[in-house]
């Protein structure tokens, strides 16, 4: 179906998951990447990551998703990994309003350390815990609107919206890239100046949007 030009074409997007401690970042990621949920999961020390691929327009798009420690004390180290991220998921826990109140701080943090994110999504996780909800859907929605973020409530435990959320971010990055690609040649320069390289590898015809693999 895909013609010769497109065969083997591959996109690599770097995405970060940030947000307060114990909001479920690691479990969101393992639910998406491995369809697993670990009720005994431990606090993330530093950063961890997983990759997951999906197909858009017949092209393989690989997301390299970095999962970070939530405690503020780790920010000196975790923020180093924001560099070159083109997507971000900012997660809070719908049962703890303090995690929602801190969303603004995470956004600031993201903006300070990365100017390459084209798709950001606000995620209210643990929506299976309706009975002890502390943040309403409307509150989440309106914050997302005012900050220009996508919004979704998810449950890593019962899988609600997890795949949808990640794929929405990945699609947005993809369409953003293709649009810009079509629109301007100067975009390539812009990208490389942002440390996001758009490299055409002659041997494999691989296109990469990423900072982490050079």
């Amino acid at each position, binding site marked *: 179906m895909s013609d010769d030009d497109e065969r083997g074409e591959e996109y690599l997007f770097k995405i970060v998951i940030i947000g307060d*401690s114990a909001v479920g970042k690691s479990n969101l990621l393992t639910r998406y990447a491995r369809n697993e949920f670990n009720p005994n999961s431990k*606090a993330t020390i530093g950063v961890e990551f997983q990759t997951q691929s999906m197909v858009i327009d017949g092209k393989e798009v690989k997301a390299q998703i970095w999962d970070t420690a939530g405690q503020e004390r780790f920010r*000196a180290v975790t923020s180093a990994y924001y560099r070159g991220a083109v997507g971000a998921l900012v997660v809070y826990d719908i049962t703890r309003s*303090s995690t929602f109140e801190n969303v603004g701080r995470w956004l600031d943090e993201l903006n300070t350390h990365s100017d390459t994110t084209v798709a950001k999504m606000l995620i209210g996780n643990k929506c299976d815990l309706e009975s002890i909800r502390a943040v309403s859907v409307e509150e989440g929605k309106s914050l997302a609107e005012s900050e220009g973020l996508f919004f979704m409530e998810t449950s890593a435990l019962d899988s609600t919206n997890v795949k949808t959320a990640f794929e929405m971010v990945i699609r947005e990055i993809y369409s953003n890239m293709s649009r810009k690609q079509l629109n301007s040649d100067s975009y390539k320069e812009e990208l490389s100046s942002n440390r996001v390289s758009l490299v055409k590898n002659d041997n494999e015809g691989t296109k990469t949007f990423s900072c*982490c*693999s050079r």
Partner: protein
Amino acid sequence: MERVLRRIQRGGIHPSIKGEVWEFLLGGYDPDSTFEERNILRNHRREQYYAWKEECRQMVPLIGSGKFVTMAVVAEDGQPLEESSVENQGWLVKTAITDKRLLQWMLVLSQIGLDVVRTDRYLSFYENESNQARLWDILSIYTWLNPDIGYVQGMNDICSPMIILLEDEADAFWCFERAMRRLRENFRTTATSMGVQTQLGMLSQVIKTVDPRLHQHLEDLDGGEYLFAIRMLMVLFRREFSFLDALYLWELMWAMEYNPNLFASYEKPENRGNFSEQDPRLLKKYGKFERKYVKSGQNEQHNTLAVFVVASVLETKNKRLLKEAKGLDDVVQILGDIAGNLDARKACKEALKIHEKFLKKANRQ
């Protein structure tokens, strides 16, 4: 003590006396002390701990109650928060907290709680809520007493085994406190740095010296800072090894790093300078790793064995790292594969070899 060190290197000590041996290894007791002397000291320490606990309980009645919080009890401006009312039966902060140290402490109590509920939960020991509460108590009290370090995630992984091994909560606290004497600098953080980066710097130096090719490769991948090794150093390989293997690794490392003057240097820090006399007969009393430093007359701050254990782990993956790692993500992936596949004794043995090689090369330069 020498016999104990040898026994550890041959295969570890029986779980029933592990806790007590650790107290010695970590410098909690003088190796030459009598049973009676130790008893006096132990009782004194227990009294001290329970006095501190009472001090903390006065401020936060949940301490010692068998319950704990995972929800914030105060806002960052010191105002009481209702959020926690769901879980802590009856107790709430009523008036705004103005004291800075107290506020800092209260802010972190829920963080400790959030980590306690996910510390080694696959162990039946922690199915019991009162054991979780003991972990919370000890970490909270330690945090109150050490405001310069505070609480940083990962300290729970260090503390958890102590509580399992030592029945008395005060003994577990002191064992943790001694372990933290070695590790605490890793947990000292500022807005722009983490203490563990000092050890990462040492690691970088070690790899650069013993395996310049690997170092160059990592540097080319933008990994010259070795940030990917943070977890190994901060929680001392708790995530790379199973629970029991990690305990064995710790005691091997501490046995190799053993210094008979540790106790005295902790108890009477003003005498620290007096331990440098080199009596060859005493050398046997040191652990294998520490002995090399004593022999060479370097009694100052030096690299910890943990750095060399990480180096040995990197070396076991040397070929794959050089060949397959095209980005930092690959490095993380390749190192991720080691989880559960490491042998504690082999890793330590290799670490000692790398240490030797490092000292030789470093001296030549």
